[in-house]
């Protein structure tokens, strides 16, 4: 039986990605606080990591669990003020977070991702700052014998201390998988998941000797299995919750007696209340993407519909327009995010760049409460990081560099100015060369210019229009021209077509025969029959109930959120073009009017 389904793992991935992003951001804040940290912030990241580790434990994601445990250990020390989050400490933590993100990205195939280096660095950090009397606990192994003495658990003392510090009791659970699982019609997987719901499985072991070999007659009669469990439950509660007999649970006290008196005990009541209630957002991103695509299709249809002047339709039109308006307002709100919640990543990039280059440089964001579309913001991180790095490189001296990114919102635009905190740090007139970054910024419908004034020094100004028309689509190439096909209209992509599949029905109609299907094909440019026969890719589109194909140059289709630019006069007179946009490398892409294309054929 599939107990942990794909949806549960997807929820874990989604929540962990969000959580790691928050942890990363908060670590940078903690770093800037130096020796005078806000403990509630430290506790929040500690608890976030604790939740990630617990999830990994339940889902048996061993590498994520191991790495999050090590990060949690270090965070625990910061929480109890035994470790100052200086840049070296934060750097090691951030590297660990980066590796965690890779593990999450490749959650089903992360066996090749190595975490040894991070584990060593984090363990080193933990042991380096511990008081002499418990420093050895990181590498010291504690033997915990199983009651009958046949087996011994070998556990790093520090792991035990961490569990004890979290107020957990340590137990050995004694099971026989034949009597306790098989004869109760339970499966081993359900059984271990059930135990994990009651605490942290620190280790477990089978009595291999009792199980014997294939030749032995005793085979299958007993399967002793021992679990070392850390649980917040008291002995009686655990016996009752697990539904076992009292002799099956032994609480470990003597073997760990010397570990049970930590120097400082973290305030776990506060830790628990420091985090907000977790809201599950299953597929929220997917839902928003779907709504964006739906809205785009509705807008296209409404644009077309609005051209009719029939008075009898005016009320219907007005009602639909009001729905469209509310729908758009809702989506604008959903797509908006505080700028600082995304652009902090540039600060992280600059921090890493400075750390690797052994220079002192910092970016200060002054974005206030300005909100922007998250799709635009995510595409700004790369070019803005590159521009800020180029500005830092202009500074010749070893003076610490502080760059300020200031944002203001005006009536019709949002303006972003990047400048040196100290305008005199670059004394002679400097010029920044950023052709690639400029193309990426222009693709966002924004303009960029730089200026140098004696008083204010070098500054780069980027201006965004307040309202953007964003079309979620797929970028394809047809006869060497890029087109954005709205995502909602793309139903399929047929590849490896051969010339025999194309049929010329009459002078104007070309069809493609794919198995039982006959798909009418529209020439979006000047494609004629001979040209189409060389095409090996067909994008199958659907407009309303109509289905047709667009023959593309290659099977490469790229998902984009196209930010539309105003149409030039020449283009606006072309009824097949609805809008145009710039791609990241500066090429122009057209958004075809899918309704017009469908009409052309039907």
């Amino acid at each position: 039986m599939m107990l942990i389904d794909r949806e549960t793992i997807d929820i874990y991935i989604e929540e962990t990605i969000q959580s790691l992003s928050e942890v990363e951001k908060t670590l940078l804040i903690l770093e800037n606080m130096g020796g005078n940290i806000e403990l509630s912030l430290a506790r929040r990241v500690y608890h976030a990591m604790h939740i990630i580790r617990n999830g990994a434990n339940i889902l048996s994601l061993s590498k994520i669990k191991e790495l999050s445990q090590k990060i949690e250990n270090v965070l625990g020390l910061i929480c109890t003020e035994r470790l100052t989050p200086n840049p070296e400490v934060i750097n090691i933590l951030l590297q660990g977070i980066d590796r965690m993100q890779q593990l999450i990205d490749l959650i089903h195939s992360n066996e090749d991702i190595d975490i040894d280096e991070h584990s060593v660095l984090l363990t080193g950090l933990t042991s380096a700052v511990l008081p002499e009397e418990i420093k050895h606990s990181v590498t010291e192994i504690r033997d915990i014998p199983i009651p009958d003495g046949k087996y011994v658990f070998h556990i790093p003392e520090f792991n035990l201390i961490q569990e004890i510090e979290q107020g957990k009791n340590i137990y050995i659970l004694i099971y026989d998988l034949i009597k306790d699982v098989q004869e109760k019609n339970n499966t081993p997987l359900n059984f271990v998941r059930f135990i994990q719901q009651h605490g942290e499985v620190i280790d477990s072991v089978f009595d291999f000797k009792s199980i014997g070999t294939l030749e032995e007659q005793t085979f299958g009669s007993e399967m002793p299995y021992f679990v070392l469990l850390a649980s917040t439950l008291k002995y009686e509660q655990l016996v009752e919750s697990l539904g076992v007999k009292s002799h099956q649970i032994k609480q470990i006290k003597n073997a760990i007696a010397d570990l049970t008196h930590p120097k400082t005990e973290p305030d776990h009541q506060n830790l628990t209340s420091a985090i907000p209630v977790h809201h599950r957002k299953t597929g929220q991103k997917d839902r928003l993407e779907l709504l964006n695509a739906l809205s785009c299709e509705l807008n296209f249809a409404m644009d077309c519909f609005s051209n009719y002047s029939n008075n009898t339709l005016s009320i219907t039109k007005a009602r639909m327009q009001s729905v469209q308006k509310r729908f758009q307002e809702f989506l604008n709100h959903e797509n908006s995010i505080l700028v600082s919640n995304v652009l902090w990543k540039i600060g992280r990039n600059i921090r890493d760049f400075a750390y690797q280059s052994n220079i002192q440089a910092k970016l200060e964001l002054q974005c206030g409460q300005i909100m922007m579309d998250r799709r635009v913001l995510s595409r700004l991180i790369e070019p803005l990081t590159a521009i800020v790095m180029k500005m830092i490189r202009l500074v010749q001296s070893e003076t610490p560099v502080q760059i300020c990114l200031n944002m203001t919102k005006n009536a019709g635009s949002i303006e972003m100015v990047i400048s040196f905190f100290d305008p005199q740090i670059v004394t002679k007139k400097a010029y920044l060369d950023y052709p690639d970054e400029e193309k990426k910024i222009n693709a966002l419908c924004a303009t960029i210019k730089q200026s140098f004034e004696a008083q204010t020094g070098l500054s780069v100004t980027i201006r965004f229009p307040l309202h953007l028309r964003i079309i979620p689509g797929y970028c394809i190439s047809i006869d060497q021209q890029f087109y954005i096909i709205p995502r909602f209209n793309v139903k399929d992509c047929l590849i490896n077509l051969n010339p025999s599949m194309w049929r010329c029905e009459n002078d104007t109609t070309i069809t493609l025969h794919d198995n039982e299907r006959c798909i009418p094909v529209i020439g979006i440019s000047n494609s004629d029959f001979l040209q189409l026969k060389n095409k090996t890719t067909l994008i199958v589109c659907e407009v309303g109930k109509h289905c047709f194909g667009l023959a593309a140059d290659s099977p490469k289709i790229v998902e984009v959120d196209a930010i539309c630019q105003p149409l030039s006069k020449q283009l606006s007179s072309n009824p097949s073009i609805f809008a145009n946009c710039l791609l990241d490398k500066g090429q122009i892409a057209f958004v075809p009017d899918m309704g017009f294309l469908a009409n052309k054929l039907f």
Partner: protein
Amino acid sequence: MSKKVISPGQDIVASMVPEFKKRLQEIIVEDGVTELDIDLTGVEMVDSVGLGAFIATHNTLSQKNGKLTVINASEDIYSLFKTMRLDQHFEIQQG
């Protein structure tokens, strides 16, 4: 030292284990195989008796200085073996 791959192709549960055990014995004891790969393609569930079969096979092979490898384990089975720390005794590869 000879190597062999065995593919049960069905869930490793109490009802099939006696026959499966017999096959394993033939391969290890009679044919002298010391490096055995158990291919779990098509296996969706392993019950407690099935787990015992893996451990007993490992024990038998260990006596002959042999080695057991479990290959193509499904996500659930891989996760079960890891949680039960069986990967510390023999190699388990996910499918």
